[in-house]
């Protein structure tokens, strides 16, 4: 099933495709002459960093471009039809019927005002493939194949009444409605937790194989693409780097860029000696219970964070990781329990904390886009905490800002008067770090700081954080759902589920058995580069379930 079969007929051919995007007054190239061939029933993985042009190329395979983009050269041939020469009506006839698209965020792509099954029926009824009643029967059948719970009934729910993973599967089922020849998956599992991702990946893989559908699978996650694709194409800034059979590519990448992609998770922080007994932790969370309204989100959680140590707090969304951070910062006063800082209790509400207490604990946010005021220049963004807490002004302040920019490896002369919109994603996150450092804190909360970044960029951020920690004796609380990040940066791990701490301890112990059952599930769900990983894992889980 996984081997490329050259005997199969060619379904889609893109030749020397050029795509341009409009910015201000000029057209700049996004895709610079890429070729792509896809056989019937074959899955092609498109990988690359953000901005590499993966989604643009994927959409071009449908003869479609986003607003402000245009295909400026090349040919697109889909099963003998020239998509560039075809009229809009002809293309519309193909879309949904013979070519379908699954978007990254199913939650944003479903119309919230209609039931799932109504949206399922739209395409087949529109294209005259099935009647409404047939479409509904067919929907139940596909929902069953996608292993959705209650397939007879789930279609009659509204999008907000089902979970994210279920919604993504419902969307894949919807794309399958007309049994298309080609489906384009645009990062379908990026927004999901690892444990949910497994189910969606398995369901997608099975259904594509069952109907012998060809697919283009776009992702930036190498381990995921290894499970899904027969062939992999690597893109970099709109150019093809290389393309090969999945196993060949994983075993022996030819190009240097591909090799760096493969090696990206090699970074690991040296193991730190255990903290001496009796040392006062910098931050100590003691029996905290907290929540919004009547519900408790956190239930009696306790953990300590020591100087020069990184504690990773892991768990899926909704497990209470971020709520724990809000309690520590004082945004959400706890119902019971206390936060100790250097052994002394902190006021529960941040408004009651002294300026010095506020200075000591800083926070770095997940989305640098919303964490930096878009109208302020870097000089003010970074300089403000230094000015406020340390009373720096004039030349001393400018010098301090320049030092901070040096620390985060940005050229001060070039960057000091820029606005956040003039920075890349990774640079913005570095400014977030500089802003936290400007306060000269003892403790920094990093809330999913790398999850919005590409792997190479994320690696740079992790290295920087690590270096700063030893330079300034910082204590980190690292909130993440990505276990690869935990492996590379954490000293200790706290695993959370449903607002409780299910397991905590040094990193090495956490990655060795025996585990708490939930930790086990979490650890085993992280995709690995081995192309047989998903098959093996599903077989193991099935065997275990059979025994139990």
């Amino acid at each position: 099933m996984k081997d490329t079969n050259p005997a199969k007929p060619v379904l889609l051919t893109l030749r020397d495709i050029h795509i341009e995007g409009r910015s201000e007054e000029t057209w700049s190239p996004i895709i610079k002459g890429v070729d792509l061939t896809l056989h019937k029933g074959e899955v092609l993985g498109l990988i690359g960093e953000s901005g590499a042009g993966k989604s643009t190329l994927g959409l071009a395979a449908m003869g479609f471009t986003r607003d402000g983009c245009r295909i400026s050269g090349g040919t697109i041939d889909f099963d003998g039809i020239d998509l560039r020469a075809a009229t809009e009506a002809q293309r519309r006839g193909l879309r949904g019927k013979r070519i379908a698209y699954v978007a990254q965020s199913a939650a944003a792509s479903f119309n919230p005002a209609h039931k799932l099954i109504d949206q399922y029926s739209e395409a087949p009824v529109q294209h005259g493939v099935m009647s409404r009643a047939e479409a509904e029967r067919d929907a139940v059948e596909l929902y069953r194949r996608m292993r959705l719970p209650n397939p007879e009934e789930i279609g009659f729910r509204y999008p907000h009444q089902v979970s994210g993973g279920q919604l993504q599967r419902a969307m894949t089922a919807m794309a399958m409605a007309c049994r298309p020849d080609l489906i384009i998956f645009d990062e379908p599992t990026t927004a999901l937790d690892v444990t949910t991702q497994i189910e969606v990946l398995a369901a997608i893989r099975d259904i594509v194989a069952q109907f012998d559908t060809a697919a283009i699978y776009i992702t930036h996650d190498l381990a995921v693409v290894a499970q899904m694709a027969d062939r992999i194409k690597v893109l970099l800034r709109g150019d093809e780097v290389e393309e090969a059979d999945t196993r060949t590519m994983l075993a022996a990448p030819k190009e240097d860029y591909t090799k760096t992609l493969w090696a990206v998770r090699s970074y690991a922080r040296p193991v730190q000696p255990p903290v001496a007994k009796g040392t006062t932790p910098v931050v100590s969370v003691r029996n905290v219970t907290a929540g919004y309204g009547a519900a408790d989100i956190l239930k009696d959680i306790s953990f300590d964070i020591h100087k020069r140590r990184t504690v990773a707090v892991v768990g899926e969304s909704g497990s209470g990781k971020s709520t724990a951070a809000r309690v520590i910062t004082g945004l959400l006063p706890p119902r019971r329990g206390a936060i100790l800082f250097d052994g002394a209790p902190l006021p529960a509400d941040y408004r009651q904390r002294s300026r010095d207490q506020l200075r000591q604990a800083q926070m770095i946010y997940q989305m640098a886009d919303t964490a930096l005021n878009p109208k302020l220049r870097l000089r003010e963004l970074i300089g403000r905490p230094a000015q406020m807490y340390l009373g720096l002004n004039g030349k001393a302040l400018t010098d301090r800002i320049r030092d901070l920019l040096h620390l985060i490896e940005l050229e001060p002369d070039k960057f000091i008067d820029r606005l956040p919109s003039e920075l890349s994603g990774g640079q913005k996150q570095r400014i977030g770090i500089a802003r936290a450092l400007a306060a000269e804190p003892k403790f920094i909360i990093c809330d999913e700081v790398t999850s919005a970044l590409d792997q190479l960029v994320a690696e740079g951020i992790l290295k920087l954080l690590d270096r700063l920690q030893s330079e300034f004796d910082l204590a980190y609380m690292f909130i993440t759902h990505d276990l690869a990040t935990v492996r590379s940066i954490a000293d200790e791990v706290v695993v959370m589920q449903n607002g409780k701490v299910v397991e905590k301890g040094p990193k090495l112990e956490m990655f060795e058995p025996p585990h708490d059952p939930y930790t086990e599930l979490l650890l085993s769900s992280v995709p690995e580069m081995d192309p047989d990983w998903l098959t093996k894992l599903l077989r193991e889980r099935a065997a275990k379930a059979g025994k139990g």
Partner: protein
Amino acid sequence: MTILINLFWIAVAIAVALGAGWLFRAATIALTRGATARMLRTAPLTAGFGMLVILIYVVVALFAPLIAPYAEREVVGAQFLPWDATHLLGTDNLGRDMLTRLIYGARNTVGIAFATTALAFTMGSILGLLAATVGGWLDQILSRIVDILMAIPSLIFSLLLLTIFGTSVTTLILVIATIDSTRVFRLARSVALNIVVMDYIEAARLRGEGLWRLITREILPNALAPLVAEFGLRFCFVFLAISALSFLGVGIQPPTADWGSMVRENAALITFGDVTPLLPAGAIALLTVAVNFVVDWMLHRASGLKE
């Protein structure tokens, strides 16, 4: 045939207006540099024309005594004289020079409208941003007061207030500014509500920033684009409201020249098919259109920047 000729003249007028807009834009681009010039290059011709018209009004309003051929209240001839060389636009119902009255009217009407809008904006945005930032009971009290004020039709409410407090220019400005600040309050509050949930506001609060700094440095710069656009629209509404009140006789009082009351005073001429009484109305319409051209462009820019 006459319809065709009329259409021809309308087309000529539009072409001349756009040509003037183009010339004005080219001139300002040549005179400025850097970011301002780059910004002006994005201006459509309509916006160029709008800016030109606004500039002319401002110059006329500022230098009225130098430009006007006669004094504001001077009776210079017989009543309702037709257009001729000495009185370019004729005279009004008391024999005052129409052109002079029009020029002084720009000063009074536009000046008062600007002062009123500025005051309405200062009050409305400060309170609106404050309500959104502090929230809780302060937001409740301010919002309910605004709801009550907005429940009363604004023209009737201003007529009522002006009757109670008397019709001086100061009370006129205060009354209209108060009523209009409620609309600004609602806009500022709703814009700010979307901003205060951002992470950078949370970061600023956790940093221990005071309320004033939070509003002026963190929230206001991000709320400015929609507020500026609203300023233009609001200016037109205030302008029309003042003219309407003057027309009804409770606005700017004679003998001060004002476009609204000028229409009423000379309304008798309309019966004879003379366009003179409609000139002040035309002046109002032209400024309103010009301001809206500029506002449209700014709105477009503001929404484009958000992408």
